[in-house]
């Protein structure tokens, strides 16, 4: 099990890839973000996107799936997140894209009231052309190693 004590600023994790299909983009958007540039390949051509693009929320959902896969690989004692400072969707995510990810730890500090610590990190997702499509700085909460928390 990997605990808060095992994480330090500068740590970098490469995240497993996710492929994005047109059907994935439309299915997510029909449920959560029904705007034509996310749901209708034809109508999307007439919009600022010039064609179908994934909802930014879909990109974030793919990001968390990549991060959770990493948590499980590392057996990280992750216990959720209090939030995100900033997130930018820089380049549209298109049908057929394959996204890869990278997370870098920026700083860590222990909770004063609970047996856990906070990890502030930057997560970037890139497409198969090497373009960064999303960059985000957010917080995670990680349990402390039990004996150290006593």
């Amino acid at each position, binding site marked *: 099990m990997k605990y808060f004590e095992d994480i330090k600023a500068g740590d970098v994790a490469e995240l497993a890839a996710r492929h994005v299909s047109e059907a994935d983009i439309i299915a*997510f958007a029909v*449920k*959560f*973000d*029904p*705007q*034509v*540039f996310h749901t209708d390949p034809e109508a999307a051509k007439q*919009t*600022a*996107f010039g064609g179908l693009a994934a*909802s*930014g*929320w879909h990109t*974030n*959902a*793919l990001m*968390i*799936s990549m991060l*959770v896969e990493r*948590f499980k690989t590392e057996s990280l004692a*992750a*216990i*959720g*997140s*209090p*939030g*995100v*400072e*900033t*997130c*930018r*969707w*820089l380049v549209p995510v298109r049908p057929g894209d394959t996204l890869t990810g990278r997370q870098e730890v920026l700083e860590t500090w222990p909770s004063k009231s609970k047996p856990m610590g906070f990890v502030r990190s930057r997560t970037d997702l890139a497409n198969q052309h090497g373009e960064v499509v*999303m960059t985000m700085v*957010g917080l995670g909460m990680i349990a402390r190693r039990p004996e150290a928390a006593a």
Partner: protein
Amino acid sequence: MNDPVPPRAATGEPVYFEDFEVGQTRAFGAYAVTEAEVVAFGRQFDPQAFHIDPDAAADTVFGGLIASGWHTCGMMMRMVCDDGLPRTAVLASPGFDNLKWLRPVRPGDVLSVRSVVAEKIESKSKPDQGIIKIANTVLNQAGEAVMTITNIAFYRRRPATTVSG
């Protein structure tokens, strides 16, 4: 007061950048959170025990099943769309700031949104667009804030040629 979406019935033209004023407030939405949807989203995107397994979730700090925070973002976006966003002159969003998950969202909750226009910025490089920042609070049925976020979006400005009698 609920302004400025949806479009003004008299003209049918979309809500442009000019139609927003800082401080305008809207309250909308009634999204019923179901266990089935929480688990489905969790399994697809955020498969941590507290999002997918009611029994295992009972033993976590959350004391039971809770929605992924990214699912809450999706539910907020759906309410924003149902409130009329697609009928505005919105172009795209460059992202968001200051997202805070304040309280767990649980199956059985009914969520709504309170939005306040926080800032308007005229684009220097694109005279036909502007940036609008909207501070959204997602509330549960008890009126508790479960999430806050500042959404950012590009809107078209009203074309001079559409002004008519």
